[in-house]
């Protein structure tokens, strides 16, 4: 009896010894056969390891340290996060501003291009539809910095267009970006009337994908244009709305162009956002640890948003399938 168990043991040991060895050898053989695949991927991964994976790990790791970016860091646990969330600093203001700006970004990017696309969808003449589409798409090619510079001129308190208009109508001129009370609303006003070309094209593609029979049927039924919009078109472009919302939330969380080029977060912190504070803490104050912690917080927020979005898309698809 003991002999046979030993025998079985010996056999299984032998099996487990040889099986992985042959599997390993087989893998190795296949790797040698496809050596050029690894060669093809090597450039990409050299780039990604250096400029994506390593910086990502470095940012998360250094968020727990005091670090000037170049000399060795000191581990401080959660101190940076505590500073961001509990101390009564500029960071609270930054996150409040980010919340306001991104909420508004979602509303404006969700609503106004939708209005434009719904109207465009109702233009019967092909030539006019083309003209209007071009009209809204063309401003996409204006570089962001040029847009900021031009709007800055329009906001200018002394010679700007908006104060010239206010004076012409006998109203009090405003401080716009120079006044802590109006600075953030001014940033929100930029881009008026907010019919973003990219969003409009995404919505329009959604409208054009609606089967023509569906629309015809509703016209035969005598549904008005408004009713048709709310009862048929809107429910059918929910995927486009979702896409635009998530893209704009992610974009708004990371955007700090105005702060970098014009406001520096001021006046008196009125326009500051976490992304700008991150840049400012690292580049201007050499506090790379705090900056990494802000970056990590933004990463977690964006990651959570994306996950929620993905999960809700999946459940939506399942619902449709049933």
């Amino acid at each position, binding site marked *: 009896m003991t002999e046979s168990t030993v025998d079985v043991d010996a056999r299984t040991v032998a099996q487990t010894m040889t099986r992985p060895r042959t599997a390993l050898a087989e893998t190795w053989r296949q790797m040698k056969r496809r050596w050029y695949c690894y060669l093809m991927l090597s450039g990409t991964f050299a780039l990604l390891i250096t400029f994506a994976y390593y910086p990502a790990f470095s940012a998360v790791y250094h968020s727990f340290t005091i670090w000037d970016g*170049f000399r060795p860091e000191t581990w401080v646990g959660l101190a940076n996060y505590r500073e961001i969330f509990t101390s009564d600093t500029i960071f609270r203001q930054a996150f409040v501003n980010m919340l306001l700006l991104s909420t508004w970004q979602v509303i404006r990017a969700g609503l106004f291009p939708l209005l434009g696309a719904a109207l465009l969808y109702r233009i019967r003449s092909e030539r006019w539809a083309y003209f209007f589409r071009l009209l809204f798409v063309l401003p996409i090619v204006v570089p962001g910095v040029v847009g900021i510079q031009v709007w800055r001129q329009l906001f200018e308190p002394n010679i700007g267009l908006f104060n010239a208009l206010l004076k012409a109508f006998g109203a009090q001129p405003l401080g716009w970006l120079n006044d802590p009370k109006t600075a953030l609303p001014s940033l929100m006003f930029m881009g008026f009337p907010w019919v973003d070309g990219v969003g409009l094209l995404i919505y329009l593609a959604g409208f054009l994908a609606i089967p023509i029979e569906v629309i015809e049927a509703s016209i035969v039924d005598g549904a008005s244009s408004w009713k048709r919009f709310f009862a048929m078109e809107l429910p059918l472009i929910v995927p486009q709305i979702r896409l635009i919302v998530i893209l704009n939330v992610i974009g708004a969380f990371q955007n700090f162009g105005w702060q970098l080029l014009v406001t520096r977060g001021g006046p008196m912190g009125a326009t500051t956002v976490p992304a700008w504070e991150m840049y400012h803490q690292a580049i201007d104050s050499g506090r790379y640890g705090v900056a990494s912690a802000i970056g990590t917080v933004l990463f977690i927020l964006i990651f959570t948003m994306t996950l929620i979005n993905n999960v809700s898309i999946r459940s939506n698809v399942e619902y449709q399938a049933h």
Partner: protein
Amino acid sequence: MASTSIPVKMKHSRYHLGRLLPPITLAILGFLTFVPLIMLLQLSVKSEQQMADSMWLPTWPMRFQNYDRASRIMLPYMINSLTFVVGTTTISIFFSVLSAYALGRYSFPGKEFLYMAILGLMMIPGILTLITRFVVVVKLSMNNSNWGIWLPMAAGSQAFQIIVLRTFFASLPEELFEAGRLDGAGEFHMLGMIAIPLAKPILTTLIVLQCNGVWNEFIWPIMVLRDPKRYPAILGILRLRELMLGVRDPGAEFAGYVIAGLPLLLLFAFSSRAFIRGLTSGAIKM
């Protein structure tokens, strides 16, 4: 009789109003959208005196010499931008085509893991790595050089490009490659002779999208380029005032803004379809 004719008439007029409402609203929205651009254009052909007289209404004569002056100052910055665009796009398309081809056409050990490692990057926002990426570039002594722009920006677009191209390469029928293999073509040869020519429309879209992205990028160049002489055009316009050496000429500054945007307008004019396809394909872009 009267009771029936009135509703018909009302319905008739509402029908007309309903047809006119969309174009009128769109025209108003379109005009308002263009107000800043119209203002930029009229400011760019004004003298300082004309601006003092009437800042926001057009004046005559138009001073087109503003563009002369601005273009002379902008030229080196435009060349910088072109260098960044061409270098970044070449490097990134070269590597993403190779990677996408390997992942799309072959099976080899570790393929799933490597593809997931690329897909996973779509979940990492640029803001997380901005600061530490800068530290890496400084440690590699790439700051203030073209490499500091080219390599990190090429790395930043790898994931999106590879995902798009891999899907395309994987969809190509195997017979195309069987024929090539029978003719004794090597794997790299088939990529160049069969796969790339077929991928031309997708490659155009990716290239146009990346040209647009690199031309417009300003945060990364501000961080990496210490010497403002190396700035791209989009940052050069912020220095126009100091570059005019004390001679105030705000009209030429505005002309400079227009000039910095012109190459993108040209790109759009020549490839509007690819341009639009690229910008609206944001579904998997972060």
